[in-house]
C-alpha cells in the first residue's frame, strides 16, 4: 500500500479525508455524549421526537441531508452567517465537510454511547453520591470511565462513516480539491467516468487501510480499558 501509484491530488484527498473524519469524530463526541445522556437518562417531553431527530440523517437519503444542511448553513442562511461571523465559515470549506460527516455519523455515535450508558450500574452512582460526589463529579469519575467502550465504539463508527460519507458532503460543500474533495468524493467521481475503476480501487484500498488502522487502535484501546476493569 505504498504511495507510488497515487498521484499528488489523490494523496491530497487521502490527507483531507483523514482530517475531516478525525475532526468530525472528535468534535461530535461531546455532542453525541450529551444527546445520548439526554436520551438514556432524560425524562423530558419530546424525548421521542428528539430521538427521531437524532436518527434523521440515517433515515433520509444523504442528498436530502446535504440539501437541508445547505438550507440551514449555506452562506445565505442565518445559521451559516452567524458561524461565518464567528470565524467558522462552512460553505465550500473543509469545515463544512466535517459538519456533514459529523451529522451523518451522529445517529451511530449516539446509539453506541447510549447503549453503554444504559449498561452503567446505577448502584455505583448511588455509592459515589453517598461518598460526597455531586452529579457532575459522578459523571466525570464514574459514568465516563465506565462508558469508555461505548465512546470508543461511537468514535470508530463516526470515523469510519466520516471516511465513507459522500452524498451529504458533496451536496453541501461540493467537491473542491484540497478543500472538500475527500476520498469518498474522489472515488465517486472516478466511478462516474468510464475507465475510472482503477483509480477508484486504489483509493478504496487506502480508505480501507485507514479505517483498519483506526479500528485496530480502537480495539486495542478497548482491550486496555476492559483489562483495567478485569485485572
Amino acid at each position, binding site marked *: 500500500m505504498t504511495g507510488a501509484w497515487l498521484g499528488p491530488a489523490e494523496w491530497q484527498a487521502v490527507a483531507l479525508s483523514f482530517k475531516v473524519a478525525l475532526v468530525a469524530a472528535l468534535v461530535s463526541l461531546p455532542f453525541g455524549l450529551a444527546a445520548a445522556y439526554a436520551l438514556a437518562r432524560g425524562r423530558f417531553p419530546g424525548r421521542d421526537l428528539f430521538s427521531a431527530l437524532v436518527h434523521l440523517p440515517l433515515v433520509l437519503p444523504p442528498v436530502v441531508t446535504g440539501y437541508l444542511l445547505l438550507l440551514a448553513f449555506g452562506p445565505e442562511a442565518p445559521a451559516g452567517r452567524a458561524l461565518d461571523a464567528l470565524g467558522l465559515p462552512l460553505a465550500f470549506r473543509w469545515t463544512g465537510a466535517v459538519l456533514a460527516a459529523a451529522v451523518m455519523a451522529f445517529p451511530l455515535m449516539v446509539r453506541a454511547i447510549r447503549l453503554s450508558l444504559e449498561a452503567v450500574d446505577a448502584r455505583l452512582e448511588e455509592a*459515589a453520591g*453517598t461518598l460526597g460526589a455531586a452529579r457532575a463529579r459522578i459523571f466525570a469519575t464514574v459514568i465516563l470511565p465506565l462508558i469508555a467502550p461505548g465512546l470508543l465504539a461511537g468514535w470508530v463508527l463516526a470515523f469510519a462513516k466520516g471516511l465513507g460519507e459522500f452524498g451529504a458532503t458533496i451536496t453541501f460543500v461540493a467537491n473542491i480539491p484540497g478543500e472538500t474533495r475527500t476520498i469518498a468524493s474522489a472515488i465517486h467521481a472516478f466511478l462516474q467516468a468510464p475507465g475510472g475503476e482503477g483509480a477508484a480501487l486504489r483509493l478504496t484500498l487506502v480508505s480501507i487501510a485507514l479505517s483498519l488502522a483506526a479500528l485496530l487502535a480502537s480495539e486495542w484501546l478497548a482491550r486496555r480499558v476492559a483489562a483495567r*476493569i478485569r485485572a
Partner: protein
Amino acid sequence: MTLEVAFRHRLSAGFALDVAFEAPPGVTALFGRSGAGKSSVLRAVAGLLRPDEGRIAMAGAPVFDSAAGVDLPPHRRRFGLVFQEPRLFPHLSVLRNLRYGRRALGLPANPAREAEIVEMLGIGALLARRPAGLSGGEAARVAIGRALLAEPRLLMLDEPFAALDAARREEILPWLERLRDHAGLPILFVSHSLPEVARLAARIVLMGEGRVLRAGPAADLLADPEAAEFLGPREAGAVLQGRVGRTAPDGLTEVRLAGGTLHLPGVTAAAGAAIPVRIAASDVILALTPPVGLSALNMLECRVAGLHRGRGPGVMVRLECGGEALLARITARSAEAMGLREGLALTAIVKSVAIGPADLGG
C-alpha cells in the same frame, strides 16, 4: 448531632415502610429479620430513596421534609453508607476507591488516618489491585474503609461483617468502638448478630415488616424478657454498668458491678473507666448456695425478681443484683427443682471466659 427519622413510604403493593426513631451520637442498631426493611431505611436516610412523606433531620436541620419540600441530594447530606454489597468502583484501584470520598469532598489527604484504616482492615497488600479479583471479604473491607475515609457526619453500616471471619471482626470492632466514643457521630448499624449489636449499640431499633416494633436503650431491650421474643431467646441478656479495677499479672482485670466483682480477660479500658458489661442469659448458672471448688470465678449475689415462662422447656429468670437487672435462662425442670420464686436469694455464676470481648462495651 442527633438523627431524627420519621417517614412513610410504599415500596410495593404488599410492602410499606412506616418508621420513626432517633439516633443520637453513638451506635444505634437496626435489628430485624431478612426483609424487615432495614436496608430500605438506610437508603431513605442516605437520600437514595425518596419517602412518600415524612421528615429526616440531622442535628435539627432537615435533609428531607416532604411538608417543607426539602430533599437534599445524597452528596449534600454527607451521610456515609456501607452497602450490603461492596459496590466498589471497578475501574479504580483499591487505593483510589479508598480515596474517592476525600477527593470528591475536596478534603486534604490524611495519610496517618489512611494508614491506620488500611492496617485495621488488613488491606495493605491490595491497594494497587482492581476490585474485580478481590475475595468477598476483601471487597467488604475495602467498602468499609472507603466510607470511613470520607469522614461522614453520619455512618451507616449494612451488615458490614457478614463476609468477615471472626478474627477480622475482632480487629474492626474495637476500632469502631473508638470511633463511636471519640468522633461523636451517630452510627446506624445493621447486623443479624446480636452479640455484635450488644457490644456496639447503645440503642436498638427492632424492625419487622417495615415498622419499628420496639426502640430504646440497648440495655433495656436486651434485658426485657418480652423483647426476647423478637430478639430470639438464645440471644437475650442484660447489660450492667461496671467500673474497671486493677489488672492482675495473669491478665484478668477486675470489673466491679453493683452485685459483685467480675474477673475478665482482655479488658482494654483504663482503670477507673466505666464500661457496660453484657451477660447473656444463657451464660448464667444459678446456685442456691455459693458453690466451692468451681472453675468459674465470677459470682454475683442476686434475688429473683420474676419468672417468665416462654414456649418450650425454657424459663427466663429476671434477677436483681445490687440494684441492676440480670437475666438467666434455665430449664423449667431446674426452676422447679430449685424451688425458684420471687424474692429468693441466690448466687449467679458467670464463667469468666464466657464473657469474651464481643460482649464488652455498649
